[in-house]
């Protein structure tokens, strides 16, 4: 593979689905508008798949999320590996019962006699002007449900590698895509490249402060770390990749080394995943900390429409650098 090979985030998703379907006839894909007759998905993530694998395995569904998720749960119990596309993360609210009461719990409630090897893909994110019902980051809700895994990629190659792992995994996994990242280009991974679930990646080593993040903010944090290095602050950047269960070992080892942590996510700060990660750091490393753990998230508000409000709602690099400089004393 030449290093100049590039793919977009949407292409990475498409390649992962294609490889998974090619490798395992039990992989099926359901969702609204996903077959080629309907355009191959509103973000083209499933383009070409129905042509290649047929509309039996790549099924366009009615706009009926309970029906989609229920069909996926039932097929999964019966031995299939469905990938259900719920177009926007907010639409998970209309099929929460299937996901939370059924997909996540059936393995436990059946004493291990049934399990649900289901992958749910959805997109979300503020910044495109969809307003309050198509933009929320609700990962903390699902991370709070025993029996589910939650994943979010920060670049095309790892998106492909994580999605392949999610599809192969025997537990229900929510795969969160960011609407602002579909056209983002990145290095193309080698065929068969996979990212294990539950493993964070230290993207940049540093000695002064650990920045723990996932999804879209990762690239911004990489760039910020580069700028701060010029000011003599050495930032360690950790991309969780899997939000639940998160890689405690990598996080705690990093913070034990730096003594400082800042958690950054797009979801609003209150009761977000940052609260859990921060608490785990305080519980395990209180005496090693040089400063209280900081959290940066979006503002406590529904995602607004008006562009200036939408930008003001979102977390910002300034907030992160201000927090870092404050705890660096």
């Amino acid at each position, binding site marked *: 593979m030449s290093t100049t090979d590039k793919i977009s985030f949407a292409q990475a998703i498409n390649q992962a689905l294609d490889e998974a379907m090619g490798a395992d006839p039990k992989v099926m894909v359901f969702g609204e508008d996903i077959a080629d007759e309907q355009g191959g998905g509103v973000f083209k993530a499933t383009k070409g798949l129905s042509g290649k694998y047929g509309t039996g395995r790549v099924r366009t569904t009615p706009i009926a999320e*309970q029906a989609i998720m229920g069909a996926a749960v*039932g097929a999964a119990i019966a031995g*299939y590996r469905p990938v259900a596309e719920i177009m926007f993360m907010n639409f998970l609210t209309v099929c929460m019962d299937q996901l939370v*009461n*059924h997909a996540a719990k059936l393995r436990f409630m059946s004493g*291990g006699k*049934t399990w649900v090897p289901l992958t749910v893909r959805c997109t979300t994110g503020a910044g495109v002007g969809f307003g309050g019902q198509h933009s929320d980051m609700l990962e903390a809700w699902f991370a709070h449900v025993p029996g589910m895994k939650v994943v979010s990629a920060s670049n095309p190659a790892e998106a492909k590698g994580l999605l392949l792992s999610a599809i192969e995994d025997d537990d229900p996994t929510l795969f969160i895509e960011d609407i602002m990242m579909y056209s983002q280009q990145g290095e193309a991974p080698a065929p068969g490249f996979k990212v294990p679930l539950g493993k964070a990646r230290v993207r940049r080593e540093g000695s002064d402060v650990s920045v723990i993040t996932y999804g879209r903010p990762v690239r911004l944090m990489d760039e910020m770390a580069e700028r701060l290095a010029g000011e003599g602050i050495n930032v360690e950047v950790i991309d969780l990749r899997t939000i639940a269960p998160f890689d405690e070992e990598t996080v705690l080892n990093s913070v034990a080394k730096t003594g400082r942590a800042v958690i950054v996510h797009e979801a609003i700060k209150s009761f977000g995943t940052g609260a859990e990660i921060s608490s785990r750091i305080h519980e395990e490393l209180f005496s090693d900390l040089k400063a209280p753990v900081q959290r940066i998230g979006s503002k406590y508000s529904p995602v607004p429409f008006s562009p200036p409000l939408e930008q003001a709602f979102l977390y910002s690099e300034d907030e992160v650098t201000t927090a870092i400089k404050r705890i660096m004393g």
Partner: protein
Amino acid sequence: MAQQLDQANDIDGATLVEIFRRSMRVYKTDERFRQMLMSGKLRLVYYPVRGQEVLSASMMSAINIDDYLVTTYRGVHDQVAKGIPLKDLWAEFTGKVTGTCKGKGGPMHITDPDTGVMVTTGIVGAGLPIANGLALASQQSGDGRVTVVSFGDGATNIGAFHEALNLASLWKLPVIFLCQNNRYAEHTAYSVGTSAKRIIDRAPGYSMEAVRVDGNNPIEMYNAAKAAVDRARAGEGPTLIEAMTYRMLGHTFGADFSYVPKELQEEAKANDPIPAFHQLLLDRGVAAEEIAAIEAAIDAELDAAVEHALASEYPGLEELRIDVLKEEIRA
């Protein structure tokens, strides 16, 4: 005319006896649960199925052990009629490690894939979309199975019912939607909560075959079930069966039942499907000794099941970390 119809739709003696056997297995299980709850030997929230035994027994006699069943929290009649070993069922109801689900699911979440009992849900209406998925798996793999999903009349008012019927009809899934219309949604009478005059009136909106039958009549119920199963296996798509029945006891064991008019209760007692079925067998020339032998065998299985359940151990506390995810949760 009625006589001729009965003859035309008659079912063979062996099948009728098998439906009776299953009905009595349900009847006696339900009766024993209530007796033990009454005497304080058991403590659990129990959803009686008295009056709905023949309905389930007829439906389950029309499918195979490896066909799929999805049922609800009031599901012990379906589970027993489908064929779950009573000892496994009783152990689960008592929270023991020898239960169908190691005691971790409990009465509202019975799962036993060996007998095709794939999901029991405590969420009204939630089973229908899942049944579609099981049926989709069969359609896709060509394994020839059908899926039966049981639910009450009350479940037809929730969105999942409508989403599921639409999809099943659209994709011609091999699924049978079995509405057990027992005339009460918890404590609310049918007419207070349901706008449709009959449940089957909802089916044409989904271009779906539908049939309304007396669920307490084994011949009528079995024939309707068989026709729906045959259609599903032939790839002709789903059927909605509205099986008329009556829940002879309260929503839960010991619950207030005064909201049901006395006349209705009296009428139901007079039409109790169990004595009627017993009489039907005698009328058909089945020997009283054969019936007694069937009942004695069930009593013996039940005695052994109760003893096994009570003697079994509770699950170890490490089970809290097992089956949450595939990989055991670290202590």
